[in-house]
């Protein structure tokens, strides 16, 4: 009944609140007990939450694996750099930028939004072509897109600085800024997944033929989700740039593609909670392994893992998760609060009826 429906809506909308609370709790813990290095790790983790949640908006709802999202990240990161670098630096290192952009020096928030919008526009253009394909062919096309972006950004000397890094970005992204964007991304992802378009897209993920027979235009919904997804992925790229202060095209290539997909798979591709949990779990593991590689002391003895063991162990974890929990840690479920509304219609629902019932 209506009240039951409201309950379900409430439960669906409680997910982002719970996820935001978990992230806030983590940040508060780090602020209270952590050192500076840990605060940096927290900021990095939250940027990855924005990235992976952005990725999930498309991959989780459409079921199409995208290898191209690092490309949208690069687009966003460089866009924000163009708007925020000091004009003198730009005319020195990026002389081929158009005149108005050379002189622009925007505040960081509008620059981040512009970064997201440019990435969304690129997502619209690339998606219009890529999403004409379906299944694995679409995934391979996204990979080709990533290669194109990387090649362009690695060679367009006067605009992107090519392989010599762009330096001097204002480093304003701390754990609070990253938290704000991560929560925004989670909210947007939840609203989209529960919208008519999100529902239609999840239906196409299950069964293309039946979805089209229900009047769903798969192409349009996939494109819409890719544009929203591209926006937040672009923002995450901008955040990453402004967190480390240096941009290089290769920071947005295979490494980040692999790690973001690994987080999505480990957490569970089927749910938003899974995307967030995957980031938290894998980021924690990575941080522990990095510290282990640097060496730690037990009593008077020094231990250190050989360098490179981080990548191997992350791969091992992924394999284990795929074997033990093929649909990820969350197994496609969301964190939800159950609100019990008084049931006016309870009596009605309990009337036994033979029609349509299976004994």
């Amino acid at each position, binding site marked *: 009944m*209506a009240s*039951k*429906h409201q309950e*379900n809506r409430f439960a669906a909308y409680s997910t982002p609140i719970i996820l935001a609370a978990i992230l806030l709790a983590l940040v508060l813990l780090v602020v209270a007990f952590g050192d500076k290095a840990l605060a940096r790790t927290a900021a990095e983790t939250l940027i990855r939450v924005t990235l992976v949640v952005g990725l999930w908006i498309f991959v989780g709802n459409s079921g199409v694996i995208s290898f191209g999202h690092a490309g949208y990240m690069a687009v966003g990161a460089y866009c924000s750099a163009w708007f925020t670098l000091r004009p003198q630096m730009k005319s020195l290192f990026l002389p081929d930028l158009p005149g108005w952009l050379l002189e622009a020096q925007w505040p960081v928030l509008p620059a981040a939004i512009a970064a997201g919008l440019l990435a969304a526009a690129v997502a619209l253009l690339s998606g219009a072509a890529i999403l004409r394909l379906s299944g694995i062919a679409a995934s391979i096309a996204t990979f080709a897109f990533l290669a194109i972006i990387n090649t362009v950004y690695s060679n367009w000397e006067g605009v992107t600085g090519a392989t010599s890094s762009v330096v001097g970005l204002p480093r304003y992204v701390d754990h609070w800024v990253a938290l704000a964007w991560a929560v925004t991304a989670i909210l947007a992802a939840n609203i989209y997944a529960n919208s*008519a*378009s999100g*529902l*239609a897209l*999840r*239906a196409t993920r*299950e*069964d293309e*033929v*039946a*979805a*089209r*027979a*229900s*009047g*769903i*235009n*798969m192409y349009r919904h996939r494109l819409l989700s890719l544009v929203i997804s591209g926006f937040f992925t672009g923002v995450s790229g901008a955040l990453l740039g402004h967190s480390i202060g240096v941009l290089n095209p290769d920071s947005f290539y295979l490494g980040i593609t692999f790690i973001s997909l690994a987080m999505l798979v480990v957490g569970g591709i*089927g749910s938003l909670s899974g995307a967030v949990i995957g980031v938290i779990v894998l980021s924690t593991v990575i941080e522990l392994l990095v510290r282990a590689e640097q060496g730690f002391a037990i009593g008077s003895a020094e231990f250190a893992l050989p360098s490179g063991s981080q990548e191997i162990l992350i791969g091992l974890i992924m394999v284990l998760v795929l074997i033990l929990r093929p649909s990820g840690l969350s197994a*496609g479920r969301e964190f939800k609060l159950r609100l019990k509304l008084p049931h006016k219609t309870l009596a009605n*629902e309990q*009337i036994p*009826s033979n*029609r*349509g*019932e*299976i004994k």
Partner: protein
Amino acid sequence: MSKLGIFDLSVRYGKVPAINDLSLQVEEGERVFISGPNGAGKSSLLNAISGAVPTSHGRIELDGDMLTGRAPEAIARLGLSMVPEGREIFGSLTVEENLRVGTGLRRDAEAVDSDMEDVFEAFPILRERRSAAAGALSGGQQQMLAIGRALMTNPKLMMVDEPSLGLAPKIVDQVYETLCQLQEERSLTLIIVEQSSLRAARVGGRMILMRGGSVVGEGNAADMVDRDALAQAYFGNPKCKEVNS
């Protein structure tokens, strides 16, 4: 006025013909059974009408609108709803989400709620399990859900491909009872692929017999059941071959 008109329809899968120059009229509010042996082209016909397979020749009209050449989603928007063979439901979505999937193209939000109420009225078990994943339902419940989902698009014409496939006879009875009742309430046009001519006769309606991609006989379902037209359709005889060629 004819509601659905099929004129000289041919469907081919590569070089293999599935339907040959088939013509068929279905009136508004009519109940039509399509029967025939395996490979007769029954599902191909439904798929061609709903746009899931391309036609190679001929045209299909619904209330004067050309359906031929349109995408399945555009055809669904014209008021044609199909329950595909094998109950293709969206397994990881909940029952309620399954029902709401088809409503994205409707503008009447209140009517959607009252339609969902109607579906729950017709299939109370769906109400009970509305928050469960559809994949966790039994076969009969999934069939009910598939029919419910098709109804939620508020169709003028509904096509059901083998509703009895893999279901216990008692459940098939329930499904048909509900289908007929819904048809009456909504003045719905129904096209049903049904292998059992006995059941079709019991439910009542017009029956179309197909064989080798053509219509080889039609008449009142109750009359067809004991006529040798059935035997002809299934086993063929010289007369049938004449019709085919």
